[in-house]
């Protein structure tokens, strides 16, 4: 507990330092005249708000499809309208708290440098959370009524992932095509400043509120309360009906007339891999996470095309990005395959050696990651075969490392616990996975630039894996 508290304090200190380096020149802005500042702040707030909206949609979807206490609450003497009003309100509070946590380093720096007036920013950020919750309820219920209960779960998760990523990705794509690098420069362009509403427009109220305009703070707070109240008033009454409909949905029918022809001449290992890939393919949350990983690779992919097209050689930056993404995705897939085995007894009582079972699961994970990253690595090969080989090797090694870590700290869990895996998994495994991916990404980047210094992060990555192997619990 003490170590965790120390780590938290160190992390918080680092975040505050980062915030200081980013925003110190904006703290003394004259909110009445600095349109450029207001535009930048608005852009950053839109980024934060898109993340909040994505999180709120995820939470609303869970309320809609969770059956854990459904029978209890719907048979209780409390009206479902009151129950779901409270639940929507709770989600708004959760999202608002999350927003304040994210913004805390920046607001604290502003308070220290600019005075106590900046404390109002906490209220503005909380208001953003409330508005995000209101929009999330409306959007999710609209999906439910448009496409039905069966499809809403998957589509809502995908929409949440896309919304969460869209603003960041859009900004980066604009930066790539206009400036040829990754930066926030598009928000600061003269063209944009010349085409946005004047500084007194209501559009800028949130930014002006964050920058200390008291009138704007009151207006933003009032609007957020009105929007959240309206969302609760309009949607809470029928939310119970939607929840019941979601619980009663009949599940997907798979069209299949006979035994799969691909399995007619099959080894047990092939059968195991086929099962793993089928389960991965049919997991909506996993699909949304994978889609998000791929979406975040879109700017680097366009960057690749843009720089190759223009004959520059800065695409070496793509290599560590691909390796990091592969490590992250591989860790999740490895957990699903190794620890999230829903029929553990069946597999354990099958006439297969434990080693063969484990190898089949490893092959399933590595194969899935290879399938996802192969197109990007192949595209990189058009620019440089050497870089493509380095990226490909890095992707496979990062995936294998994440899988090894999961093997060392395997648990007995269900696939449905995947979204909480970091809570139930060992912290050593969680940090090991993250640091291992970073080390292999650094190794790949340095190999791509042709320096022998790549040896150092590689040794760090190998040490991490060796250390994890040494301290991992014995397999029973």
């Amino acid at each position, binding site marked *: 507990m003490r170590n965790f508290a120390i780590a938290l304090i160190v992390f918080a200190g680092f975040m505050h330092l980062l915030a200081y380096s980013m925003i110190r020149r904006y703290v003394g802005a004259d909110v009445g005249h600095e349109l450029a500042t207001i535009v930048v702040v608005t852009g950053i707030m839109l980024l934060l708000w898109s993340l909040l909206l994505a999180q709120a949609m995820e939470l609303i979807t869970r309320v809609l499809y969770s059956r854990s206490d459904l029978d209890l609450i719907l048979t209780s003497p409390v009206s479902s309208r009151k129950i779901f009003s409270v639940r929507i309100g709770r989600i708004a509070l959760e999202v608002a708290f999350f927003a304040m946590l994210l913004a805390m380093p920046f607001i604290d720096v502003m308070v220290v440098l600019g005075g106590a007036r900046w404390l109002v920013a906490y209220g503005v950020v909380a208001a953003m959370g409330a508005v995000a919750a209101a929009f999330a309820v409306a959007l999710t219920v609209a999906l439910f009524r448009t496409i039905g209960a069966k499809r809403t779960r998957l589509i809502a998760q995908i929409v949440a992932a896309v919304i969460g990523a869209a603003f960041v990705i859009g900004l980066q794509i604009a930066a790539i095509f206009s400036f040829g690098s990754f930066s926030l420069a598009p928000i600061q362009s003269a063209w944009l400043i010349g085409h946005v509403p004047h500084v007194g427009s209501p559009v800028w109220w949130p930014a002006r509120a964050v920058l200390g305009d008291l009138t704007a703070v009151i207006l933003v707070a009032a609007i957020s309360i009105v929007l959240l109240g309206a969302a609760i008033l309009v949607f809470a009454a029928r939310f119970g009906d939607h929840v019941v409909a979601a619980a009663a*949905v*009949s*599940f*997907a*029918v*798979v*069209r*299949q007339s*006979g*035994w*799969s022809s691909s*399995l*007619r001449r*099959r080894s*047990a290992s*092939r*059968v*195991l891999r*086929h*099962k793993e890939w*089928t*389960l991965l393919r*049919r*997991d909506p949350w996993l699909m949304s996470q994978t889609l998000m990983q791929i979406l975040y690779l879109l700017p680097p992919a366009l960057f690749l095309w843009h720089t190759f097209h223009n004959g520059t050689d800065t695409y070496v930056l793509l290599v560590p990005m691909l390796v990091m993404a592969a490590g992250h995705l591989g860790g999740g897939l490895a957990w699903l395959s190794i620890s999230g085995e*829903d*029929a*553990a*007894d*069946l*597999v*354990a*009582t*099958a*006439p*297969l*050696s434990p080693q063969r079972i484990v190898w089949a699961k490893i092959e399933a994970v590595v194969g899935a990651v290879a399938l996802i990253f192969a197109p990007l690595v192949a595209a990189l090969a058009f620019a440089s075969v050497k870089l493509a080989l380095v990226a490909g090797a890095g992707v496979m090694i990062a995936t294998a490392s994440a899988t090894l870590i999961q093997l060392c700290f395997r648990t007995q869990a269900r*696939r*449905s616990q995947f979204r909480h895996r970091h809570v139930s998994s060992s912290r050593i495994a969680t940090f090991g996975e993250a640091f291992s991916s970073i080390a292999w990404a650094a190794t790949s980047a340095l190999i791509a630039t042709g320096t022998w210094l790549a040896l150092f992060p590689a040794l760090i990555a190998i040490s991490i894996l060796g250390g994890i192997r040494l301290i991992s619990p014995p397999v029973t």
Partner: protein
Amino acid sequence: MHSPTPTAIMSRTRRPVALAVRGLAKRFDRPAVDALDLTVYGGEFYVLVGPNGAGKTTTLRMVAGLLRPDAGSITTGAIDALADPLAAKQITAWLSDEPMIYDKLTPFEYLEFVAGLWRIDSGEAEARARELLGWLGLEPHAHERCEGFSRGMRQKVALAGALVHDPKLIILDEPLTGLDAGSARVVKNVLRERVTAGGTVIMTTHILEVAERLADRIGVIASGRLIAEGTLDELRHKTGKTAASLEETFLTLVADPVVQPVAAE
């Protein structure tokens, strides 16, 4: 349950042994199974009963290969299950009280997967799968994902998976837990059918009426040891209450501090 004649008792000992457990022991923080001896004959429906914590589940999990015993031997058919676990698993099936299947697979896909693990000929397995799905009333749901199934349906899918590879020994731990009367009846009928066809079933249950109706022999386990074994009449004879129900017989046996563990046959 039928009363054995002397001829039946003699013929039982001439049947092949489907499962022989000798001196089986397993300890966690205390002895869970303690020098257990158990014999189940081919074509027999054997039910293991005992109070909570007696060691029934631990015993069956060791027989199924899910736990490694601290001591003792397990012979499945003619196979030493500890020396050659894969060969033993090839002819056994395990079904737990909690149906462990894959939510995102259909029953048809699940049976396909199980048949693949046991390397059953695909034509033969497909035909058997369709037959089992029909027997268990799952044919209308054969191509629906299991995530929407009730507990009874999930248990039937798991049972179909246990039977699709035609095991010689079927090991079940409380298979009727949480099932409605209709589903329980179907499961019992299918298991009885397997035994009639020459298979062997060893099962635990807390529902003594089930044991009374289905079992050819009953084993009573307490404190990790088999303290009584036989047909219902034989168990009654041990307690001296010839007209007692299985419940009374069982309660008498587990309450009696001087009952000695049953020796191997």
